[in-house]
């Protein structure tokens, strides 16, 4: 049944191959002419020999292939017709520069078709260097083909689900909130990954909330914190100074939150209850573990204020 149906499929596929095979040498001539001098050769030489056998093995170890299809590989395009994407920098792709090492053993052992042996004999003739494009030149071409970030509609999750984390921050019934606060559990309105997190600043009695999803980097968060608290901080200084002196207290920018050089430093409490310095982990990792933020005076920041909960409880009282 399988055999029959596959042979039904391949004639049409064969047609496709043949059409392009006819153009094959023409296309290839064109490609070589259009490419940068020596450019085409460069992408294939040296890697060709290695990739040849690797390519064979990968195809063969996957299983049952008909001649026709293997023939078809010869005519594959060697350059991607996607020039506009070349050399675009990508924040998406973290691609290593070393060529891939083919897991020969791994693939060979996964052979799922008993016909591998037969095909091997036939196909050593079929293969020619020109089919070497795929496996190895892949990384080069794909490296150049990139997706500019941020991308609309990626990952493909319904907006209904994307809003879940933020919408789960609604008020629970009164009894439970008391219970949670008493037990010292994480703040009640932070079910889920907490896109809206509280942020408090030393010296400012009123806290704020920030939506971490509105930012994509520590720099943006840092400037947002500056904006949020600049005015409040100035007002505090104003009132503490008696208010009589300067009605117009200059609002000083809050800088150096991330590098320890400013008057204040940004720290956060993570999902394990530990207090951590902001900026160590990749942004998305930070977003998924942060529970609340604090802006501390750098002078009070010592090795002791960062670390586990036990230390923190002792220090909280000390700091206050």
């Amino acid at each position: 049944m399988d055999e029959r149906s596959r042979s039904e499929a391949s004639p049409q596929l064969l047609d496709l191959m043949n059409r392009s095979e006819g153009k094959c040498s023409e296309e290839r001539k064109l490609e070589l002419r259009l490419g940068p001098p020596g450019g085409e050769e460069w992408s294939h030489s040296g890697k060709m020999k290695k990739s040849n056998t690797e390519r064979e093995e990968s195809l063969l170890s996957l299983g049952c292939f008909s001649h026709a299809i293997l023939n078809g590989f010869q005519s594959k395009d060697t350059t991607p017709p996607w020039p506009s994407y070349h050399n675009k920098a990508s924040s998406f792709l973290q691609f290593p520069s070393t060529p891939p090492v083919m897991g020969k053993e791994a693939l060979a052992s996964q052979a799922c078709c008993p016909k591998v042996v037969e095909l091997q004999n036939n196909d050593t003739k079929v293969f020619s260097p020109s089919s070497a494009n795929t496996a190895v030149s892949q990384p080069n071409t794909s490296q150049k083909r990139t997706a500019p970030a941020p991308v609309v509609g990626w990952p493909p999750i319904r907006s209904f689900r994307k809003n879940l984390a933020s919408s789960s921050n609604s008020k629970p019934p009164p009894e439970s909130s008391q219970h949670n606060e008493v037990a010292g559990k994480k703040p009640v309105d932070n079910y889920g990954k907490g896109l809206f997190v509280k942020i408090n600043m030393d010296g400012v009695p009123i806290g704020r909330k920030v939506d971490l999803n509105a930012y994509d980097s520590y720099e943006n968060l840092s400037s947002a914190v500056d904006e949020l608290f600049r005015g409040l901080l100035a007002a505090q200084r104003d009132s503490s100074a008696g208010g009589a002196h300067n009605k117009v207290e200059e609002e000083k920018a809050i800088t150096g939150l991330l590098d320890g050089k400013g008057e204040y430093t940004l720290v956060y409490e993570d999902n394990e209850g530990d207090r951590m310095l902001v900026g160590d982990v990749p942004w998305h990792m930070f977003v998924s573990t942060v529970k609340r933020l604090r802006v501390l005076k750098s002078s009070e920041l010592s090795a002791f204020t960062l670390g586990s909960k036990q230390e923190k409880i002792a220090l909280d009282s000390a700091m206050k």
Partner: protein
Amino acid sequence: MMNYFPDEVIEHIFDYVVSHRDRNALSLVCKSWYRIERFTRQRVFIGNCYSITPERLIQRFPGLKSLTLKGKPHFADFSLVPYDWGGFLCPWIEALAKSRVGLEELRLKRMVVSDESLELLSRSFTHFKSLVLVSCEGFTTDGLAAIAANCRFLRELDLQENEVEDHKGQWLSCFPDSCTSLVSLNFACLKGEVSLGALERLVARSPNLKSLKLNRSVPLDALQRIMMRAPQLADLGIGSFVHDPDSEAYIRLKNTILKCKSITSLSGFLEVAPHCLAAIYPICPNLTSLNLSYAAGIQGSELIKLIRHCGKLQRLWIMDCIGDKGLGVVAMTCKDLQELRVFPSAPYGNPAAVTEKGLVAISMGCPKLHSLLYFCHQMTNAALITVAKNCPNFIRFRLCILEALKPDPDTLEPLDEGFGAIVQSCRRLRRLSLSGQLTDQVFLYIGMYAEQLEMLSIAFAGESDKGMLYVLNGCKKLRKLEIRDCPFGNMALLTDVGKYETMRSLWMSSCEVTVGACKLLAKKMPRLNVEIFNENEQEDCSLEDGQRVEKMYLYRTLAGKRKDAPEYVWTL
């Protein structure tokens, strides 16, 4: 031989033929079968509401009782279709209301539904029984109030993931006291409050209520009272599950739950305090379906504890905080698992969440698995090859590697071989979604092996037109093809234009197709609507042939060019 039977006999035989495809096949046999079939047809499925006019539908099937309509293309779920593109219910309801059709059931997906339509629906069909709205928008709780108030024999009101504006009108209280026929009520997606008293009374007077899904505003004590009145419930969606575990209410709930032995399907937990979960452990052994994909408040360890009690699960929807280890527990516990969906818990996923290891574990423990939706951080060819070997029964295989273009992290190869193994092994595969780094090779495999494939979703994949051609050429049963950000261009689009009439629709966005090619296609194929979305702000944007098309959606239709398209949609 059949022609010598009187019509009544043939009709009786046709009663046993239920599926849409079989029915469609019957109608093609001969003229008299066409005639008999059309008068006896009660259920009609229209996968694209623009493929046919309501008038034509009504004319052919005057005995219509149940209608399913789908509107916007699938990628509308991911904000790729601009607002007000279309998919309006209104003309359908108006046409049906004017006719003599005794509509009883309406199921809609991705359509724009107005309150006026709902009102008209509620008033026009005396025997209306069932309304199911999935991923729809455009209506408010006022529309729901009309349904509640006017549909005297309503059995089912099922709202799944709709955008509904809350008008605080106490829609639930609009069910009259005489309404006792409810079998299924799902309002989990509503954001506003409902009258708890009205809800409890409604449940109390609905002895046939089998499925009830509450929204977030229904607190735990109300849940307990409701469950007391409906011990016959089989399918429960919990809204809020937050309570002090030492309180009276919670203890009452635990006892009530013990009495609800018929619950086999559980979902919701839109708001949850994890320490309350122990209350549902007693019903877990009976569950065949568990949907915790909205329960952002449950951490991985609690999920795992819960799953250990669920030995009979066939369907599991969960978030990726369960982790690879947790999936290992699922694999050991849920031997009957058929459908699994793992959703990302944060927009870019949790780096420690699920990888290929979890999927391999599942494939080893759950050989009956046939439907998968898996969001993960990485995938390897070796893992996919193993999964393909372990689970040859896949019907739906949707894999989303969160980082686009990511290769196999072990070998740095594209994932062609892995997906190739899947299509080669799973001969019954009907739906496939690809991700990760992929070359034209994977499409060659798909074209060769995926003979039953009906729907294919592609993003950031392929290298040349050949990729798309392999698919169009090889997949004879292809109905829906949706492509974004792939280097497929005019050659791929135009090589086999006849193919598109065998399909429902084709979506291509951010590819290499030009306006000229689309125009040519539209000219060659008059029974296709070729729509181009031109979202530029410029006023004088004329469509130049050489211009690249940002978004194109084409579909076969008997209705001709549609008249309700917004300005930015150009039907060529």
